[in-house]
């Protein structure tokens, strides 16, 4: 199948009947063969439909924080309506105190004119943030989609911002998918270079990532050139089987029938048995090295050789050359990311099937806060429940059917697109790139979404202060000259002041649209620093900007024909 329409990944994938990988997605293409599909999804609810729906925001449900914010904005609107409505009788009364002054466009004997009252209401009620609230939500969804993550609901995106505990699978997320050669440790006085050479020879035909990493490691560390199979015409490669639990190469000595060199690498018990069978014995330090590697969380591969002088005398010498240490390689930059998470107040827990010893080593190296070793699906589920009982929100990734219960239990469950359909159903987000590291980005997007809402709300409310300073003196300075003190901006005339305030109100919405769509700049860090910065920028900024803005507009507006 070509699933690039939904994943963006051009490499085709295999879908076959029966088993976990049997589901196909609408909108994807069959590249070869023929499939019969049973459609269980109802029309209009397919994956593609959902994607479109999410991006369009057509039937977007309000998230909990959005609802709370709407309540706050509604009550502010009522407060401002009250302030404006109750102003009218006071205005009529005040106007009556100064019967001598002439009526003007804003204030006459009947009080403040309707149009100015309307202008005042429009300026004061939180229209700015009200207009941008949906845009912010949809933009957040869109940022996720751009990173190839489909969220099933906005609620999940918001929950991502609140996550306290992150469960990360070791393999693929924290470490590279496979173990790699890390060191060659010779035993019994063997030359280190000889061990490297033997290990490389035995791995030439080994296509497993571990095997390839040995070849590469020997080349980069000891300068041993990688030989192709063609350079060794006499070589017979012995593949790995589950029975022998080792692989290697047999090199025949030219001109000596039956003579040659056999090299094997594999699990310690299998290779040592092979050496003993061939009449050799392991040097006493072998066990020590093997145990040491195991204890440090690595995997030991023992390399041994058997030299046969020739079929004639049948003399064979078997000896252990040394041990290859394989270990998990922590992805670059993970420690910094986890430090960042910690400063954001998020605890990271590594989940692995390894034994506790191995797990501890990797956990320490990667800098995660905790780990769960020898984890079964039930253990994962229990861990999530424990965290949630402590009032924490948990996020995790998963791809297998056995992850489904945990994905469903987690507050944010990100299923890999390569995963089973059960996993995808259980989670509330699907990562189309199937990249488990993306969880960290999802958390950041969730936070950015909330910050943008909070920052623009603060900005919008702070703006109102300046509007009062423009409109109140404009309305009443004629009646009470003392109120002209509030005309801090020294606006040209009452008319131009009210017009400038209304124009500013309209322009600021437009000016803030890019910010609403892009989201407020977010740098991971602790809460204090973030609050200080955002309060300064959007709180104080929200107070100051309209003073400047209204003044600038007034400087232009006063030259309009008809403005006195």
């Amino acid at each position, binding site marked *: 199948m070509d699933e690039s329409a939904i994943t963006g990944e051009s490499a085709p994938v295999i879908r076959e009947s029966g088993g976990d990988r049997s589901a196909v997605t609408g909108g994807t293409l069959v590249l070869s063969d023929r499939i019969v599909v049973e459609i269980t999804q109802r029309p209009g609810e397919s994956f593609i439909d959902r994607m479109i729906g999410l991006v369009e925001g057509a039937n977007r449900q309000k998230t909990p*924080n959005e609802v709370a914010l709407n309540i706050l904005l509604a009550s502010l609107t009522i407060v401002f309506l009250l302030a404006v409505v109750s102003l009218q009788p*006071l205005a009529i009364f*005040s106007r009556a105190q100064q019967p001598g002054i002439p009526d003007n466009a804003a204030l006459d004997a009947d009080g403040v004119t309707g149009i100015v009252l309307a202008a005042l209401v429009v300026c004061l009620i939180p229209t700015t943030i009200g207009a941008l609230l949906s845009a912010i939500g949809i933009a957040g969804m869109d940022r996720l989609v751009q990173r190839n993550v489909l969220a099933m609901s906005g609620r999940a995106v918001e929950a991502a911002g609140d996550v306290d505990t992150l469960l990360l699978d070791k393999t693929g997320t924290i470490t590279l998918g496979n173990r790699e050669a890390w060191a060659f440790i010779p035993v019994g006085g063997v030359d280190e270079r000889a061990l490297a050479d033997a290990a490389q020879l035995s791995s030439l035909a080994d296509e497993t990532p571990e095997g390839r990493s040995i070849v590469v490691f020997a080349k980069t560390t000891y300068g041993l050139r990688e030989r192709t199979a063609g350079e060794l015409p006499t070589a017979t490669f012995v593949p790995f089987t589950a029975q022998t639990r080792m692989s290697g190469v047999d090199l025949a000595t030219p001109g000596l029938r039956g003579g040659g060199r056999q090299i094997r690498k594999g699990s310690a018990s299998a290779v040592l048995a092979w050496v003993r069978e061939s009449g050799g014995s392991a040097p006493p330090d072998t066990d020590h090295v093997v145990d040491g590697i195991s204890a440090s969380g690595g995997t030991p591969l023992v390399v041994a050789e058997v030299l046969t002088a020739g079929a004639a005398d049948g003399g064979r010498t078997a000896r252990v050359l040394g041990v290859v240490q394989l270990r998990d390689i922590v992805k670059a930059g993970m420690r910094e990311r986890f430090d960042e998470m910690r400063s954001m107040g998020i605890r990271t827990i590594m989940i692995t099937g390894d034994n506790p010893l191995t797990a501890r080593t990797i956990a320490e190296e990667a800098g995660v806060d905790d780990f769960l070793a020898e984890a079964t699906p039930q253990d994962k589920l229990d861990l999530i429940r424990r965290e949630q009982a402590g*009032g924490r929100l948990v996020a995790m990734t998963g791809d297998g059917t056995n992850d489904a219960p945990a994905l469903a239990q987690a507050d944010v469950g990100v299923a890999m697109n390569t995963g089973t359909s059960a996993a995808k159903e259980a989670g509330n987000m699907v990562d189309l790139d199937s990249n488990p590291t993306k969880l960290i980005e999802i958390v950041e997007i969730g936070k950015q979404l909330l910050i943008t809402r909070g920052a623009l*709300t603060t900005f919008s409310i702070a703006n109102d*202060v300046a509007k009062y300073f423009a409109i109140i003196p404009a309305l009443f300075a004629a009646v*009470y000259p003392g109120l002209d003190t*509030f005309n801090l901006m020294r606006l040209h005339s009452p008319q131009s002041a009210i017009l400038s305030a209304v124009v500013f109100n309209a322009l600021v919405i437009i000016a803030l649209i890019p910010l609403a769509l892009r989201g407020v700049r977010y740098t991971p860090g602790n809460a204090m620093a973030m609050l200080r910065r955002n309060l300064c920028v959007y709180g104080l900024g929200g107070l100051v900007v309209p003073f400047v803005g209204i003044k600038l507009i007034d400087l232009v507006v006063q030259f309009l024909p008809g403005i006195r």
Partner: protein
Amino acid sequence: MNTTTAGVVFAASLAVALGLTYRPFGDYLARVYTSERHLRAEKMTYRLVGVDPDTDQRWSIHLRAVLAFSCVSALFLYVFLRLQGRLPFNLGFDGMAPGQAFNTAASFVTNTNWQSYAGESTLGYLAQMAGLAVQNFASAAVGISVAIALVRGFSRSHTDRLGNFWVDLVRTVVRVLLPISVIGAVVLVAGGVVQNFHGVRTVSTIVGGGQAITGGPVASQEIIKELGTNGGGFYNANSAHPFENPTVWTNWLQIYLLLAIPFALPRAFGKMVGDTRQGLAIVSVMAVLAITGVFLVNGFQLAHHGTVPTAVGAATEGVETRFGVSGSATFAAATTLTSTGAVNSAHDSYTSLGGAVLLLNMMLGEIAPGGAGSGLYGMLVVAVLAVFVGGLMIGRTPEYLGKKIAAREVKFAALYILTTPALALGVTAVAMALPGERANMLNSGAHGLSEVLYAATSVANNNGSAFAGLTANTAWWNTVLGISMLLARFLPVVFVLGLAGSLARQRTAPVSSGTLPTHRPLFVGLVTGVAFVVVALTYFPAIALGPFAEGLH
């Protein structure tokens, strides 16, 4: 020592005294509401009333208890005032008229103590002692009980129980208000406050005329008037009367007493939620607002433009010479910052900008430090809103003390914040629109508008102080202000208890470095800012046309 220095020493010594008692008194209050033991007197009361002191109430039951208790109190007081003429010790006064009796009952039950009557010429000893003074204790205790229920909403986790209203009520009276009142009353008597049953005596004055002087059990009522942030005086002149407040040091003591409980409650709050820094943050917000208020009133009274203040050196009109300008200004600021409403000078005669600050003090919603109990719960509601805005800005669902501030919590907080402005601005607007009611103003123009705005604001914040000038003993004013007081007291109580219920139901989320720290100076600044900006945006037009129109030149 010149006037300014005296004023600074007066206010600073109050601040020091409050600072010294903050910790021990707050800790004591926390112990009162967390102790498992019942005193013998309390047990007897519970048995008498038929309450099981060990049951825990849900918020709805708690609310029902508050409303039932207050309703019965109001009805009792109303009947009592109406029937005064047929009861003993009435000094010959007849029962109150229905409108005024309703207004007075509503006023004392809601801890407002707005007085549309003159005490010494309307009420006898029985009505003062068994009617009004009892409510001075009860209404303060109700306020504190509601505040404690809200604190439990924060401190408890995953429960629908907020404690027992009756226990909190009885303990407040028995363990806090009564002991302090007994000692305090004796101290006041030592300072010259009268406490007798002499009735009306006619004395000959120096100039040869006769003057009727009413004695009475003043000290016993004066002490709870301040301690319970009530403010309803025995005499019409309130704390300006020499029998209520004879000397400078009783003046100091009265201010201290009316600030003591509201400023100590945050400590109890911190103690009960297990983090005294949280209490310190809340009290800091209160202190910043209060100090600003005191400073501004003093400033405007001591240095104000205008012919008379400039000539005399300070605004002395309406000020008792016993206390001086500063002793009056500080009292006025304290009484408006708390919901006390006792007065020792005529607020109507304050400079227009000084009067504007008194208005603003009340408009803050009586949170700095506010009334007994009501100050703490009002401030916590503002803190909840500040947390909501601030929490969003750090990218998390806002949390306060581990409780999520979501739709339900914001709804209750927003309704709370809406109530007071709706009543204050609504009553002002309606009164200004009705020519008949407007005519009750003493002054015309902007100052007359200030009188109406002040009355409506005072009542909508359960303060009870009067700008004076306005003739409020009319059927319309008595009724409207009475209803306003009841709504201003009990609607917020409904919202606060609802909020407490929904907070208590939540699990307490653990604090991490990602959660908003609510004990740092930055948070103190945020709450102060939110409180101030909300008030400024709500009341700016009204204030501009009242005191600012009059005071700015």
